[in-house]
């Protein structure tokens, strides 16, 4: 097995782990972390494609690298925006929950 294949299989696992955390973890901050784990896995799959594209004296295809760099930047901006939204939600409601409560749920009190 080549190193590229090894990292490809590892990336598949990382993406699955991240997706699982994104679906299952109830806390929004944990979802944001999980989504970034997922994104890292997807980027590495692309990086493996670039490594396999080594040719013409380059150790890897440089064009996917440029696109992954752009992707990492956009992922950071999205993360910053998501965290800001979450902190505002927490400041407004005192909770960090994505659950859609019926009106009046706060009066019933759910332990917050």
């Amino acid at each position: 097995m080549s190193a590229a294949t090894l990292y490809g299989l590892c990336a598949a696992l990382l993406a699955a782990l991240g997706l699982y955390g994104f679906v299952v973890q109830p806390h929004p901050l944990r979802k944001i972390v999980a989504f970034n784990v997922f994104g890292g896995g997807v980027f590495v799959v692309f990086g493996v494609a670039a490594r396999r594209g080594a040719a013409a004296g380059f150790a890897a295809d440089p064009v996917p690298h440029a696109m992954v760099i752009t992707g990492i930047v956009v992922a950071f901006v999205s993360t910053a925006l998501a965290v800001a939204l979450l902190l505002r939600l927490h400041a407004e409601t005192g909770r960090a929950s994505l659950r859609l409560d019926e009106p009046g749920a706060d009066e019933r009190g759910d332990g917050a």
Partner: protein
Amino acid sequence: MSAGFVLDAVVAALLVAVATGAIAARTAFAAVVAFVAYGLVLALAWVRLAAVDVALTEAAVGALTGVLLLAAAARLRPSEAAAESELPSAGLRAAAALLCAVVAAGLAAVVLAAAEPAPTLAPLAAQQLPATDLGNPVTAALLAWRAIDTLLEKVVLLAGLLGVWSLAPDRLWGGRPGAALRARGAAPRDGALGLLARLLPPIGIVVGVYLVWTAADHPGGAFQGSTILAAMWVLARMAGFVDAPAVSDRRLRAALVAGPLAFFAVGLLGFAWADGFLAYPDGWAKPLIVAIEVPMTISVAATLALLLAGPPARGPESRG
């Protein structure tokens, strides 16, 4: 089995371990700490995949993301216990695990059944590289062949910052982000943080500028350099040496848009002196790329630093 492959196997195993930690940790704080480790190991993986430019980006951005998430985890700690009660039922978790196993199997199949020979743009890149006067093909891809991606990425950065700012309540609009400086009295100026904030920025600023300059021929880049510059500012701000500027500050606004404006200007001039939008005339590619990168570095550093600082939290009148 070569030593290199053993190293790759160790890095891959570490990646899976820290990713599991980031997903399954007991507290959000522990998850974020594992995620920071994930970013560092991921940077190692990028080096092993012969993507040093990506590794630099991952390491630099990973640090900024870590600061952002750690601060949020500290603020949100009281809300964690309530969220735990919202954990989906065992059946739902099993269904999610099954879905993720299918995704992993699909991705693994794509990796194992990849086309042979692998599709690549490397020969085309090698052929076109001399026309740009650059030695680093990744920089050429970012600022010449795929410049439109990079331009739009900078616009996304600004749009993200506007999104963060727009979360400020009306009465605080135009004010300064974040809490007031704590370091008026006996705050961390004298502690380890104060020492680091004195020691690191001179080195960090040199490294950041070097990364921008060297990117023409070696791994590095305007984005990686600006990330380090932003990190230095964040460090100085955490130690209480500098305060965040008010978001209504005109000089700040000018710094934020200088890079994208220079990029757009050079792009539009391409209609006049070359083949079209973002085309460079022969022999002028390198000076024009430098002319874009310098203001871009300032803009990106300012945008990243303010993304970390968050929305305005103190009104424009308060001096505190």
